[in-house]
């Protein structure tokens, strides 16, 4: 007796364990089953029923956890329960409509074979040819009518129910879309930043170096012709001046696009350099900075540079503080001074420029500058991670 209880307990444990082991396959089968129904219902409604499971990766255990934490899995399960309650009766009805007409025809023709008379939907026994033909045809007409009138709307109703349960809710679709767009935008910014750094490097090694080499040779030529009047000397003189102007312009362009000091020293080093050359004593409070997209670094550097210029030009401040923090996918930079405040955004203060540059990267700029000071500019930039 005891033995049988123990065996029973062990057996059920094994079966439960096996059930648990089979869970991943069951869940995968459920996905295929619901996907098939999405396609069926979608076909009937002439639409596609969108869904997206979280992508599976890693070990079997991780995959199982990903499936169990995927909200779509639980919607699938809920749909299966409702499918049992509603789908089964509907399927039975469909079966009747599909199998009924041929059965009726057989009953009409072979009413005389069984000992007991056959009853159709109308309940009247078929015991002679007139009743068999008459009620048989009536029965056939009822079946076809049922198939034509009742089944299509029921099927559509069922398909709507399937769509309601198995499609992603609009809010979730929207959230996923936003997530996708955020990711692709971050990728685009990354690529853009890498491109900026590459262009800076190319211009430095190529165009700038070539211009210097040209200016150098023109300089030597100028020396050779020193004191000689004439067209040649004048042309070389002009060419030399042009080369110098071009070098100056190119340097200005590169500095606005991607400051070389950023490439050389990184954001923290470049901000140290800014603070060192700011006429207003500037205190730095830099948090730990991870890898940042080059475009984000350039924009933050630009904002700090402009803000410190403002502090020096307009604020009458004794000191300024630059603080940079990276947390929760945002780079937050604030530039605060102890000056007189009342910053005027319209008066070519550079804040407009900061706003435009930061907005291009989906960032925000907050300027707090009461009339009697102090002024604080906070720039927040999304930076991936």
């Amino acid at each position, binding site marked *: 007796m005891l033995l049988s209880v123990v065996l029973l307990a062990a057996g059920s444990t094994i079966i439960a364990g096996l059930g648990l082991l089979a869970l991943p396959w069951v869940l995968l089968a459920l996905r295929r089953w619901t996907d098939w129904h999405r396609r069926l219902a979608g076909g009937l409604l002439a639409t596609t029923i969108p869904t997206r499971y979280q992508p599976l990766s890693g070990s079997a255990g991780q995959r199982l956890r990903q499936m169990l934490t995927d909200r779509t899995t639980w919607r699938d399960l809920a749909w299966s329960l409702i499918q049992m309650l509603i789908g089964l009766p509907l399927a039975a009805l469909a079966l009747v409509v599909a199998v009924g007409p041929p059965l009726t025809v057989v009953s009409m023709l072979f009413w005389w074979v069984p000992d007991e008379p056959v009853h159709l939907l109308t309940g009247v026994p078929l015991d002679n040819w007139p009743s068999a033909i008459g009620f048989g045809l009536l029965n056939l007409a009822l079946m076809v009518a049922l198939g034509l009138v009742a089944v299509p709307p029921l099927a559509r109703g069922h398909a709507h129910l399937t769509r309601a349960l198995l499609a992603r809710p609009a809010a979730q679709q929207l959230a996923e879309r936003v997530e996708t767009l955020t990711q692709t935008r971050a990728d685009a910014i990354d690529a853009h930043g890498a491109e900026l750094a590459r262009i800076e490097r190319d211009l430095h090694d190529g165009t700038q170096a070539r211009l210097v080499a040209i*200016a150098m*040779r023109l300089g030597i030529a100028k020396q050779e012709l020193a004191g000689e009047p004439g067209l040649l000397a004048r042309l070389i003189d002009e060419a030399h001046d042009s080369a110098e102007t071009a070098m100056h312009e190119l340097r200005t362009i590169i500095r606005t696009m991607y400051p070389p000091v950023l490439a050389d020293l990184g954001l923290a080093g470049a901000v140290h*350099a800014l603070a060192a050359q700011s006429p207003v004593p500037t205190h730095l409070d830099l948090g730990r900075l991870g890898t940042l997209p080059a475009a984000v670094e350039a924009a933050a550097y630009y904002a700090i540079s402009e803000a410190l210029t403002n502090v*020096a030009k307009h604020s009458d401040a004794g000191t300024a503080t630059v603080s940079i923090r990276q947390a929760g996918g945002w780079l937050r930079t604030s530039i605060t001074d102890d000056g007189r405040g009342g910053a005027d955004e319209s008066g070519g203060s550079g804040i407009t420029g900061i706003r435009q540059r930061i907005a291009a990267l989906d960032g925000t700029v907050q300027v707090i500058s009461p009339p009697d000071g102090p002024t604080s500019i906070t720039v927040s930039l999304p930076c991936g991670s």
Partner: protein
Amino acid sequence: MRIVIAEDNVLLAEGLQLLLTRAGMEVAATVADGDEFVAAVARHRPDVTIVDVRLPPTYRHEGIRAALAARRDRPDLPVLVLSQYVELVYATQLLAGGQGSVGYLLKDRVGRVEEFLDALRRVAAGGTVMDPEVVAQLLAHRHNDPIDTLSPREREVLGLMAQGHDNTAIARLLFIVESSVNKHVGNVFAKLGLSADDSGGHRRVLAVLAYLNNQSRTVP
């Protein structure tokens, strides 16, 4: 004058070589990275060196590091650093040793051959040469500063002092007589509260740069 050049760009290295040999100088070696530079300096004992800021392998500020490394072995080694852009932090690092014989110029300046050779000779002779852009960065956006009390001429003199010119050179560059320069320099030192020093040497440049870099920070 024997020169060692650290420049990885072939076009520029060739141009420099042409320019220097034409001026009667001897290019002992042209190297392409910092380690080679330190080795070449030890081997050739040059009178002056020319170093590009961006050198392999990282192409960031290897040149500054190489210059400082070479000067650890030989603190009075004259070094003229060339760069495609100038940053005050690099100038400060180069000047930090306090020995002089240091120059920091934009590469653009090489095209003005006479001025460049003059700068190179000044560095070789123990002087200090700062690019006008570094000085301009220091003079930019200043308010409530004793510098505001300088006359335009005195500001010019201050800028040229910071670049490393002595009084004779300043007189030549401004087309004025040296005694006027002496007077302007005296006024500048008095207005900025610096101890008078008309030697035109490295100490004067350091004093002026240090003033420009720090003075406004102690003024309320």
